[in-house]
């Protein structure tokens, strides 16, 4: 299968993602500039962390008007997997592809440390290699990671099982300990923790592999259906 990694001015985790997919997952991967207008030929799209456009105005607020975004919307609509990590999550909420928004951490501090997460839904195309309620360890690194949505939206997130990962010890003040949510269709995931920084034991954790493996398993099962 073939992954696209979107690169915006100020992205800084795109190469970590690239090597995670190429060297650890052994899958095809290509960086796609924010200036491009097509995502044809890709099976999954990854939106990396960083500080797109310097986080000017709000995190993700300017990146979401990039030339690549209409193609991203089309790709998301087609039902294929889209994963936004950290700034990628912020871009997805600003673009309206995911509900809610990411506020300043409640402590007003930038937090950079490994964080235990609880798998809250193990049936999604991003988490099928995990078990429900399993604890996984992934690093977080953000200043604006405090997920906020109104009560009505939270009710819908719970009713549709859209909350995939929760923090065990909420580090940033997120509503309902939310660390990662999908859209209603379940094919767009935004998460603040960084799976690409946890793909080898030498990095402190290899739990991030489970997320990429889930995507690969999903895409390959679709291929079998499509070709069979």
């Amino acid at each position, binding site marked *: 299968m073939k992954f696209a990694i979107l690169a915006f001015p100020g992205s800084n985790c795109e190469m970590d993602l690239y090597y995670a997919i190429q060297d650890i997952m052994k899958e095809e991967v290509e960086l796609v500039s924010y200036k491009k207008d097509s995502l044809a030929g890709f099976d999954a799209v990854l939106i990396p962390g960083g500080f797109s456009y310097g986080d000017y105005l709000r995190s993700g607020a300017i990146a979401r008007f990039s030339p690549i975004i209409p193609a991203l919307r089309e790709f998301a609509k087609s039902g294929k997997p889209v994963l936004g990590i950290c700034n990628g999550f912020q871009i997805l909420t600003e673009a309206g592809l995911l509900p809610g928004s990411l506020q300043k951490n409640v402590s*007003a501090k930038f937090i950079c440390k490994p964080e235990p997460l609880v798998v809250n839904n193990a049936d999604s195309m991003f988490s099928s290699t995990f078990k429900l309620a399993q604890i996984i360890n992934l690093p977080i690194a953000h200043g604006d990671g405090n997920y*906020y949505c109104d009560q009505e939206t939270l009710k819908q997130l719970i009713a549709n099982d859209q909350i995939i990962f929760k923090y065990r010890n909420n580090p940033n003040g997120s509503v309902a300990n939310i660390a990662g949510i999908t859209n209603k269709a379940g094919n767009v995931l935004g998460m603040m923790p960084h799976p690409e920084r946890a793909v080898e034991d030498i990095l402190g954790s290899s739990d991030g592999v489970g997320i990429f493996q889930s995507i690969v398993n999903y895409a390959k099962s679709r291929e079998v259906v499509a070709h069979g």
Partner: protein
Amino acid sequence: MALVKVYVNYKKSILNPEAQAIQKALGRLGYDNIDDLKLGKYFEITVADGISKGDLDKEINEICDKMLANYNMENYHYEIVETEAAQ
């Protein structure tokens, strides 16, 4: 020419830890009369001649809804100031 002053601030339901830090620091300096302090954003947009008030209102609202404010967290208001050149 018209000058448009746009003010964006957080909704009441949204925590603003930066504003709280500033307020606390002022408290430490002995300014005890401050009940609340808000930290928002302020934009000055200069608009070229020849646009009607109605079109300008429409455009500024569109700009705010689309980019300058995030309706999940923020409210905005604006005022249009005529500059000397327009008089």
